[in-house]
Every structure is written in C-alpha cells, then in structure tokens.
C-alpha cells in the first residue's frame, strides 16, 4: 500500500511532496513519487521526438531530485518516471501498479497562495480516480516529522456524507488523530428592499446551524460506539457571505486535513465532486482529500468492523 505523489515534470513543488510525506507518515504507508512524462504518438524514433523525450525525462529527473531533497527521510520513498499518453492516464496506471491508496497532487499555479486551487490534471483525476485524491494548497509546508493531528470531515447532512464521517473516524482512530465534523453554509445578504431587516437571513442560518449540530451530534454518538475511536471529536459550523468567508469562520490548525466526499449523484466508484463540495475544495486553507463515494462506504464498513 502506497501513497502516490504526482509531481509535474518541469515544475518543482515542495508543497505536494511535503503533503505526500505527511500523509504517508500518518497512514504508515510507503511513498511513490512519480513524474508522468509524455510519450510520442505514433511511436517513432525520429531524432526530434527522441530529443524531446530526453528533455522531458531530464526535467522530470530534476523535479524528482528536488523532491528527494525535500523529504525528511523517515518514510520509504520510491521515485518513478513514467511515460504515458496523458498525465491523468499515467497516474491511474501507476495507482494500479503500485497499489496506491491515495493520490497526492499540487495546486495549480493560477491559485491564491495558501488556498487549494484545482488545476486541469487534478480536475480530470477528481472525475476519474478510484482512490481518494489529496490536493495541497499553494505554498503548503509541513514541519519535520509532523503527523496529521486532526481530520476535518465536511458534513452536509446527507447519507453519503455520514459514510464519509465514519470512514474519516476510522482513519483518524488508526492514526491517533482527532476528528472534527465541519458544515459550511453560504448565505447571501438579505435583500434590503424586502423590509424585513438586514438580518433576516440570520434566523435561517441559526435554524440551519441548529439542525446541523443536532445531526452532527447524533453522528458523533455513532462514532463514539465504533471499536476504535478517534482521540477526540468535535463539530463546527461555518457560515459566511462567501465560501471563503464560511471556511474562515471555523478555526484551522497546522496539520489539519479536510476530507470531502464526492457527490452522491456520480458513479459509485469514482470521484465526482458535487457543486457544494467543489466550492469547499476550492476555498480550503488546508489540504483536501476528496474521497469517492464507493471508497467511503468501504472505509466506513471497515471502521465499523474494527
């Protein structure tokens, strides 16, 4: 069982390597750091193609060397350059080959520092991956030897989201970390012209938050009856006028990881991010792990069985 870190050839990134190492250390898995390079098609040995492939391999190796230098060294790591017709396909091939349980990717450079930003490759994998996908915020850094101290599970009140919480509880318990349930709501400001006051939405928010806390408390009660329980449990509700405000409404610690379930509409085994989940992912200040629904069910069943 491994954690597969996908680095982009030609662009060094400390964030993704450090997140990969943090997660591998916390999960007790080995690390595979892979750079997927393009293959020429149709396969040919014309000099111009060969030159290009050599260049791609060389730049992949530069990135892998950099990654090796970034590692703390306490996690066993393998470095791979893998050729494939597309980065997404390459990563999926490597998942099978190395029995990866988690894919770790970096944010796109178009994003804001400190926030997760889903690039095109990550977006493609979010729609196709059979295993959870973790995405590091831009500029993410981890202290030496750190472990994930708390898993924050995004909870929407739906059935599949309850599975995700149980799954997250199992993983938190196995890693000795804490579990936190977080629900987020964005409420637009009340229309002033309606004559019902500027705070008309506050009462709606309070009622929603009350229901969420009730549901979360019931769920945490279930978590407490699992064979292995997390070190501590907690539930928070974040609201604001925008998604980033709602996510900043709750407190985030170093080495927090946010776990988000895929939409209940998508195919069972694949990650398919719902509209709310996608927004939570895009505004997260901490690394996000997106878990496919089918995978969450398996992990939840495992947590319940002990």
């Amino acid at each position: 069982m491994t954690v597969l870190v996908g680095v982009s050839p030609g662009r060094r990134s400390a964030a993704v390597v450090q997140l990969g190492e943090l997660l591998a250390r916390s999960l007790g898995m080995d690390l595979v750091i892979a750079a997927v390079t393009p293959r020429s098609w149709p396969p040919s040995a014309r000099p111009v193609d060969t030159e290009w492939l050599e260049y791609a391999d060389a730049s992949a190796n530069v990135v892998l060397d950099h990654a090796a230098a970034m590692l703390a060294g306490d996690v066993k790591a393998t470095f791979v350059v893998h050729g494939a017709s597309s980065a997404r396909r390459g990563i999926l091939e490597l998942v099978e080959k190395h029995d990866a349980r988690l894919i770790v990717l970096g944010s796109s450079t178009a994003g804001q520092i400190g926030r997760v930003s889903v690039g095109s490759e990550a977006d493609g994998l979010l729609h196709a991956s059979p295993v959870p996908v973790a995405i590091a915020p831009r500029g993410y850094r981890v202290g030496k030897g750190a472990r994930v101290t708390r898993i924050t599970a995004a909870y929407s009140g739906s059935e599949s989201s309850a599975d995700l919480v149980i799954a997250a509880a199992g993983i938190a318990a196995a890693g000795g970390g804490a579990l936190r349930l977080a629900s987020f709501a964005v409420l637009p400001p009340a229309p002033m012209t309606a004559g019902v006051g500027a705070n008309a939405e506050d009462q709606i928010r309070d009622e929603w938050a009350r229901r969420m806390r009730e549901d979360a408390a019931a769920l945490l009660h279930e978590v407490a009856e699992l064979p292995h329980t997390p070190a501590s449990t907690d539930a928070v509700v974040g609201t604001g006028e925008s998604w980033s405000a709602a996510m900043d409404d709750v407190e985030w610690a170093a080495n927090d990881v946010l776990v988000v379930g895929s939409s209940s509409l998508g195919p069972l085994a694949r990650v398919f991010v719902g509209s709310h989940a996608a927004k939570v992912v895009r505004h997260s200040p901490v690394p996000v792990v997106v878990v496919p629904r089918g995978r969450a069910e398996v992990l939840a069943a495992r947590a319940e069985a002990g």
Partner: protein
Amino acid sequence: MTTLGQQLLRRKPTTPPAANEAHLKRSIGLFSLTMIGVGGTLGTGIFTVLSSSVPIAGPAIVISFIIGGIVAGLTALCYAEMAGAVPVSGSTYSYAYATLGEAPAMGVGACLLLEYGVSTAAVAVGWSQYVNQLLLNLFGWQIPTALSQSPEEGGVINIPAIIVIVLCGLLLIRGASESTTVNSIMVVVKIGVILFFCAVAVTGWNADHFADFAPHGIQGIVGGAGIIFFSFVGLDAVSTAGEEAKNPKRNLPLAIIIALLIIITIYVITCVTAIGAQAPAKFDGQEAGLSAILQNILHSSWPGTVVAIGAIISIFSVTLVCLYGQTRILFAMSRDGMIPAIFERVNPRTMTPVQGTVIVMVVTGILAAFVPLNFLYEMTSIGTLVAFLVVSVGVIILRVREPDLERGFKLPFGWLIPILSIVGCLLVISQLRLITIAVFVIWTAVFLVFYFFYGRKRSVLQTGHVVDAGIDVPYTSNVRQLEDER
C-alpha cells in the same frame, strides 16, 4: 400561572445587539439607503394602478398620490423611530412583539400577510397584463382571456400570474437573493422605463383631459388615495435597513424624505402625462396601462413594447422581494411558536425554508389566479395602512412607557408626527370600500382567534423553549435599559 391579560400583552425579550459582530458594520450610506427606499417602493403599483384609480378620482388622482405619499412618509418616519428604539431586527411584526405585546403582534402579522402575501398576488396580476401585451406586440397573439383573467373579469384562471409566482418561488427555494447592487440596477431600469413613458406620452398632450379635474370631489380624491396607497408599500424598507446605516440619526430621516420626494415626483409626472395623453374616461379597465396609452397615441407598437419589457423585468423583481419578505416573516412567527413549525424548516442543502416557501407560493398563486386586481390592491392597502397605524401608535406608547430609552433617531415636534400619521392612515382607511374593511376585519379576527387557540399556548414565551436567546435574558423588560448601558 400568567393571567390571560399578561399572556396577550407579553413582550418578546430582545437579545443584546452585540450578539453578532458580523452585522455591526455600518456600511450603508445615504445614497444606498435612498436607493433602497426608491427600489423597494417603485414598481409595486405605478405600472398598473392607474386603470383602477383614475375612474375614482379623475385627474385629481395626482392629489391622491400626494396625499398617499405624505401619509406613507409620516408613517415611514414613525417607523424609523421605532426601528431605532427597539434593538430587534425584522419587520413590523418583530417591533410590535417587542414593544406592544403578543396579541397586537399577531394582529400586525395578519396585516403583514396582506402587505406581503396579497401584494405578491397583486403585482403578479400586473405582470400577467404586461406579458400579454408583450406577446401581442411581438407575436400578434396573446393568452386567451379565459386563461389570463380572474373569474370576475371574464376569465377562468390567471395562468401568467401563477407562472411568475412559481418562478420567483423556485428562485427563492434555490437560495437566490436580490443584492444591493441588483437593487440599484433595478432602480435604474424602473426609473428609465417610467421616464421613457413620460417622454413619449407628453407628445400626446391634451390639456382638455384635465377639464373636469375632480369629478367626485374630495371623497373621490381620498378614495383614490386608498387604492394608490398600495404603490407606496415598501418605503418602510429604509427603516428596517437603518440598523446598517452610517450615521442613522441624520441619514435615516433624510433618506426617507429624499426617497419619498423622488417617488412622489415620478408618480405625479407619470399621472400628469398619462392623463394628458389619454382622456380619464378611457382608463377604466385598461390592461397594461402604460403600454396601452403609448400605443394609442402613437399608433405604433414599439414604445409600448419597450415599456412592457421594462415593466416585466421590474415587476418580476418586486414579486421576488415580496415573496421573500413573506417567507421570512412567517419564519420569524414560526420560530416564536405562533404558527406551525413547518414554516421554519430549513432545507440543509439549499439553506432556505423550502416548505414555507412552497406554501406561500401556493396560497399567493391561488389569490393571483382567481381574485380580481382591484380587491387585491385594496386588501394590500388596508393591511399596510393598519400595520403602519400600529407602528405610529407604538411610537407613542413607547415614548410614554420608556421615555428615557436610547433611540437611534427621535422625531421632532413631540407627538405631532405620530398623531398626523395616525389621522392620515385612518382617513385613507375610512374611504376604502365597505367590503374591503369587512373582509379585513374578518380576516384579522380569524387570525386572532387562531392565535388565541394555537399561538397563545405554543408561544415560545409560554413554553420557555427559547430558541436563540441566551439563558439570562430577562422576560420582564424587553428593551435596552439605561442601567445596562453603564
């Protein structure tokens, strides 16, 4: 055990205003505040109200608009003092509950169902007229009378009115909301359309139309004011936005007065040019009035089409806001235990009160489909007038009961303004049709009987199940005391 009197007059404790710091930002300036007043008011009535009011007052409807505007302005000023004195947020219902007591608050609730719910139906009917006009102009076809009129006006059911209410309801269920920016855009659209109307209509000016200025005398003028009062609904939005206003002591009254002047000016210009362009006798029963007038004088359809499109856009936004207000008022009442809890269910995904919205949508949809427009106007007017009356009385009661209360804004000239406001409201109410007053009294009585058997026992103040207030909130006094400030 509390006595019946104590139950009926118990007041809701107010939570300290500092409870939510996110909303303490005072961000609305004089301009935006004025825009809220203009945006909340303009568009409810002016597009359709002339056809039912000109036959009553004749060209003197201009005076009716001024009377209606003055009464609306006086009550809006009282509203501002009330809103500044009571640290609760929300509608007239919340103010009445915090100052006058539970039973008066329920009476106000009955009025607000008219002010919001019935006016939603009324504006939706107006929308259906303009949709029909637009269809006719663009495609030479319109929805048959049977499907676009209420039974009393020769139809069977008003389908377009139902459609607009359902569309707005679905938007609200999805969680849409009109931001301050959208409001400002809508204000520009509304003023633009109305000025366009005036500019074109003035080309058909005929001073002879004003010859018989007040055919029905003073009674006709005040009676007309009763109907057109409907088009001033929404001015109180300025006061409810007051808690977010910068320097409310200065800006709140100023914004109300400026907004009122803008609105009265627009209404008066519209009336004068409309009557100048079309003889008063022709207004009776005219549909999509402003559009039709332009087409009659120009014998060309494009100006009418422009006005129709503008009206459709602006009336839609008014319907949305009215429907929104209604669901939130019912939500507040439900949280207080006054009405069944179905109105306070929030859907966890959309974060909107879905069931409540659907119920409001169905009821207002039925009203819009089957009740004639005239009656809807008058019911809205009387509901609004009585709600305003209660606020004005509340200002006086509050001054007697809590003279030292810290008020964000205090009306000058002692009791003059509240008393004038009460007199004005009573005057306008007295000229409404008897049937309107009777239906209103019956409706309020039914609502209060419902309260007596339902809300009185289930009130949160009775059961002690306080949803959001802290444990230490006192039940005896409900307004900020000076002692607390020190």
